[in-house]
């Protein structure tokens, strides 16, 4: 253990330079976010992840956000265990019919103001699962979505860019507004 710890102390951190916010995400976010709400929250957002039928590929990459390379928490973003503690719902999957009610109830359980980020191609429109009897197809058909992050699955860097766009646009507009 000593060697591992000492190495951690003397080496440069693995955390990489923060990426610029995603332009497309900024554009999507510019429309329809509640400015007053953003001012209250500043740069810190608590995220509750909800798998609404994903293949678990997106979950793997969302998990990776917490590793030493991406170190999500340095941006004031952290994952929380309950929707009651969350500002952001991060939803993956094509929304299976068996998960529709659970997703809707999780949304209701999240206090206002809140945002929904849909991660992955399935969450946009059902992806490869669109058209099945068991799938609703797209998160926005169940709860309102503020930001879509595309990819199958989107790599952590892409998810991070989207989230940074969320906090950045929150901050800018809060200062302006």
């Amino acid at each position, binding site marked *: *253990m000593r060697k591992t710890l000492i190495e951690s102390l003397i080496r440069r951190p693995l955390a990489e330079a923060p990426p610029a916010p995603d332009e497309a995400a900024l554009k999507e976010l510019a429309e329809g976010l509640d400015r007053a709400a953003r001012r209250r929250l500043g740069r810190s957002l608590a995220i509750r*992840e*909800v*798998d609404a039928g994903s*293949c678990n590929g997106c979950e793997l*990459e969302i998990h990776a956000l917490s590793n030493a390379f991406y170190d999500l928490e340095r941006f004031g973003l952290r994952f929380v265990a309950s929707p009651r503690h969350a500002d952001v719902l991060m939803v993956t999957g094509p929304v299976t*019919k068996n998960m529709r009610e659970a997703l809707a109830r999780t949304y209701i359980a999240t206090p206002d103001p809140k945002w929904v980020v849909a991660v992955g191609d399935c969450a946009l429109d059902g992806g490869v699962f669109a058209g099945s009897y068991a799938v609703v197809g797209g998160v926005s058909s169940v709860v309102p979505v503020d930001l879509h992050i595309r990819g199958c699955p989107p790599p952590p860097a892409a998810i991070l860019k989207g989230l940074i766009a969320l906090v950045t646009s929150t901050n800018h507009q809060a200062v302006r507004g």
Partner: protein
Amino acid sequence: MALIDKIGGVKVEAHRPWPRVVVNEAGWGALIAKLSAGDLTLLGLWGEPNAVHMAVLDEETAEIAVATIECAQGSFPSVGALHRPAIRFERALRDLYGLIPEGLPDPRPWLDHGRWGVRHPLGDREDREEKPPLYAFLPAEGESLHQIPVGPVHAGIIEPGHFRFTANGETVVRLEERLGYVHKGIESLMIGAPLDKAARIAGRTSGDSTVTYALAFARAVEAALKIEAPARATYLRALMAELERLANHFGDIGAICNDASFALMLAQCGILRERTLRAADACFGHRLMMDRIVPGGVAHDLSAEGAATLRALLHELRRVFPRLVELYDNTASLQDRTAASGVVRPELARQFGAGGFVGRASGRAFDARKRPGYPPYDQLKFDVVQLDAGDVNARVWVRIREVDQSLNLIEQILRHMPAGPIRIEAGAEARSGEGMALVEGFRGDVLAWVRIESGRVARCHLLDPSWLHWPLLEAAIEGNIVADFPLINKSFNCSYSGHDL
């Protein structure tokens, strides 16, 4: 006597590489008797609108066969009545096809939560409008028992499912799982799909095993169409499969330790996992290597720079990983949590035919790479890791040793990789056949079965090892404390998506 002769019945010619026979009720009954006596192992059980298939394995000879019973009356003798591992297969089959397993001891629905708007979506479809019925959990009786309902939305970044604990104080008396929340109707999407689309769907059955599923599907298609992937493609496939195994084992080892509140291991293993995924991305253009394996070969070759990236990765992993293993082994507080908790008895692992680290930590040394085996593993040296303790610690150690094996395998693959083409045209147009494959993923053996008609998928069934792991988790938690459930659950790391389909 060969397995096929023991089963009897009428052989179906178009089924490869293992035989399929259509049996009558007596033949089906004889098979059930062999399963319940432990002479054969159930690999899977799945349906069609008018027939039920059962894949069985003879553990001694590693022979595999599929038996089919035709259900003219819409029913068949239940396997689960005498052989418990089949119960959930049959509940799912009844939900999807409407076929009745006669004598099935558990009549409750499994995947069908009453929310699809249809009944029997793959059989005789009927519209369904009524409100979803309440699900009756199994009872547990006794003084001062209480229930803890958990899920489907869990506290972490995990897939959805419901766990119903009945506890006496801290001790779990009964755990009952309710799954099916991520059922996406994969089998229905496969029907009529062209091969390239079907391969993409297969690769998204369980994202953490995308390479394994793509490989299993491709091998089943190749068997059905009587084609073989070029030698270089088989090496590239094995390379991707071992990278996937490494990444997942690193993730699991870290996450298990984290659930015992030892976050340092999570951080360190997370670094190794990330390095592995980045190397995969550099070599194959996708971190999880999705859609890189296709029927007929692979879609992406390995360049000289790619090989150099992998050698550098091997060097780094071999430098750091042994130190983490030592850390795991020497931390008493961690061992205190993992040793002797969540025990799966060897008899149970054998009865359920548990694969992967769940089976291999409980004395069942089955590895599809060795037996029945597939190229290029017949050309490579590796050992099947087997431990007997069956606890969380044993499941961690199986993973640790498999990491070492995979590192050696990757080294051998890089050294012996033949030159040549990486893909042959599947040439599927107007061709038909049935094929099956068994491929070893990080979690265990994934079974793929496919019927191709005129170059399109007519039927496809994909079977995740989690089907047979989930029931063992229920058994493993009994008598443990509620607080150890996350740890024990993580040591299984069952797939929800792979199970729910």
